[in-house]
């Protein structure tokens, strides 16, 4: 699908192409996601709503975001009770919501599983999401390249992770570690923040105090990145390069301006929520994706974690989200 986006909404939207542009049968889509407690997650919810607005034939039922799996299960159950046509579920914890996903599928409601994957394909019709491991790998590879280019033999590479208790953080960190290891490097000081700018500032301040010299720093999330950058400025440090994560508009602007330590960010775009709604509409109307030869919508769609640098930033500006 192409990315023709009306910028006014501030959201990255998916267009419909070919016969799919025609309004079809009315589709009610149920949407459930974790609490929109940081920019990326907020952008997911916002994108989903904005995308639904685009279609005259879609009614969106979005529930309150919650980080309590128990509560999210109840919300999905409520949507099932409501007999929505298609469910779009971004679970707080994929494994924990597997059963309710399966319940929906059993009740004949196709489920589009976004990002955090369910435990079994029986619980979803289609999964669309990013690849956290590869995100880490791409960040690691980029940093390794830069280090080699600068001829730094034993670089100190720092990491500011997201919420440590989430599987996605562990996957990102693992990918990062593995990619660095391939070049013979390892992760030095590491802290974990809470995806908020305040925690980013706090953890990074401490990290910088503990490490008098670093050569590179990967920050998992551009939301907390604002705080991470503030901490770096507070400490008057600039001897290293920083790579961001997820791809916020703010970070892309900085990469473009090239006036700070941020040199790149690894995408994990919330545009996947827009795509999920578009897919849900097609599922509800029993249509396929126009440009594909398949009659059916694929079962798994993985978005790609591109590395955005000064050279290609213009190309990605539209998927940058407001952090």
């Amino acid at each position, binding site marked *: 699908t192409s990315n023709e986006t009306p910028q006014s909404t501030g959201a990255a939207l998916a267009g419909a192409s070919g016969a799919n542009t025609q309004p079809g049968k009315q589709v009610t889509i149920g949407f459930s996601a974790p609490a929109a407690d940081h920019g990326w997650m907020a952008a997911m919810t916002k994108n989903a709503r904005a995308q639904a607005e685009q279609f005259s034939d879609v009614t969106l039922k*979005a529930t309150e975001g919650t980080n309590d799996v128990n509560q999210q299960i109840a919300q999905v159950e409520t949507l099932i009770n409501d007999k929505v046509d298609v469910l779009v579920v971004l679970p707080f914890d994929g494994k924990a919501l*597997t059963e309710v996903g399966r319940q929906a599928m059993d009740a004949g409601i196709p489920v589009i599983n976004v990002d955090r994957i369910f435990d079994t394909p029986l619980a979803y019709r289609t999964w669309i999401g990013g690849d956290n491991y590869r995100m880490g790998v791409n960040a690691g590879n980029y940093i390794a390249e830069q280090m080699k280019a600068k001829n730094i033999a034993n670089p100190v590479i720092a990491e500011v992770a997201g919420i440590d*208790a989430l599987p996605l953080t562990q996957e990102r960190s693992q990918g990062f570690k593995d990619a660095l290891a391939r070049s013979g490097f390892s992760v030095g000081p590491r802290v974990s923040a809470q995806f908020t700018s305040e925690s980013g500032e706090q953890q990074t301040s401490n990290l910088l105090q503990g490490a008098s010299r670093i050569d590179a720093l990967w920050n998992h999330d551009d939301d907390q990145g604002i705080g991470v950058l503030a901490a770096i400025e507070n400490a008057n440090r600039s001897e290293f390069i920083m790579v961001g994560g997820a791809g916020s508009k703010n970070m892309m602007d900085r990469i473009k301006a090239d006036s700070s330590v941020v040199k790149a960010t690894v995408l994990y775009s919330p545009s996947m929520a827009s795509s999920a709604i578009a897919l849900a509409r097609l599922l509800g109307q029993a249509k396929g994706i126009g440009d594909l030869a398949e009659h059916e919508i694929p079962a798994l769609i993985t978005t790609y974690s591109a590395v955005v640098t000064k050279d290609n930033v213009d190309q990605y500006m539209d998927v940058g989200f407001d952090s």
Partner: protein
Amino acid sequence: MVAPQRELTAQQGVGKAPPSPGERKWSGGLSFDVRLAGLLGVLLVLCAVGYATRPDSFLTEANISTMLRLAAAIGVVSVGMTFVIISGGIDLSVGSIVALSSVWMTTVATQSYGPAVMVLCALLVGLGCGLVNGLLISYGKIVPFIATLAMYASARGLAERLSGRRTQVVTETGFTTFFRGAFLGVPVLIWMLALVFAIGWVVLNRTTFGRRTFAVGGNAEAARLAGINVKRHTALVYGIAGLCCGIAALMVVARTTSGASTNGLFYELDAIAAVVIGGTLLSGGRGTLIGTLIGVLIFTVLNSIFTQNNLDTDIQNIAKGVIIIAAVLLQGITARRRRVLKT
């Protein structure tokens, strides 16, 4: 000479003459109290609003069952919390204990022994953590807030360590089949909730143990001089709270078919809020389990209304605050009106 009776209910009288709430008689038993009636009124109003906005789906059997199953875990935790608060304490660690129990019972090793051991494991872990809280508070003489704050951090840390921060799926189908099943058409979880409440009510209102809990919370020194072993009693009360967390962990695991260190987030706040809305004094010595149950249901119904009416999260938060205040004020007004009518 009076220990200032600062708070009487969720509505209090700052600097008022010792308030004279309704008939100041004991209403721990079945007898219905004006305040509880007000609280029930709030719940009914909320249900009416739910029905008015979504007549097609709100009061359906399916939705009621969903709401009650959602209320089950936090409801059970709130039972334990009611005991703790009546005894004059507070427990910030309930959410973390739920997480730890859920993780421990779903480790591969535990699951290999079958469902009975899983259940036992959750209960023992919960009870154990609760007793550690209790011992630190009673024999270690650490104020409840601090002791349970420490448990709040440690238990969740331990849960993360045990699970390696992975979500552990239940592979033991016997467990899931039973706890996700139904009995006489009513889901097992709802039976459990009802049972825990019933047992809690009997223990609190009909046994020596319950009577002593009120005494310890009302005036620990008087209780001690009346020959009650206040320390042991305090330790046991926290043990009960821990046990309730273990039961709640069973419920969470049954619902999510998995154990994770992120389970039970914010349970402490939700449970304390339900207990306090239900009319139990944070300063101890006074409270009812029926109030707590209604408090839990009020929050559950509120959530369901929000979900069903598709409200934005930010609006929901604002509305939640306003509704809490309105509910408490409403209770106060009905209580006052009733009092006037009576005299």
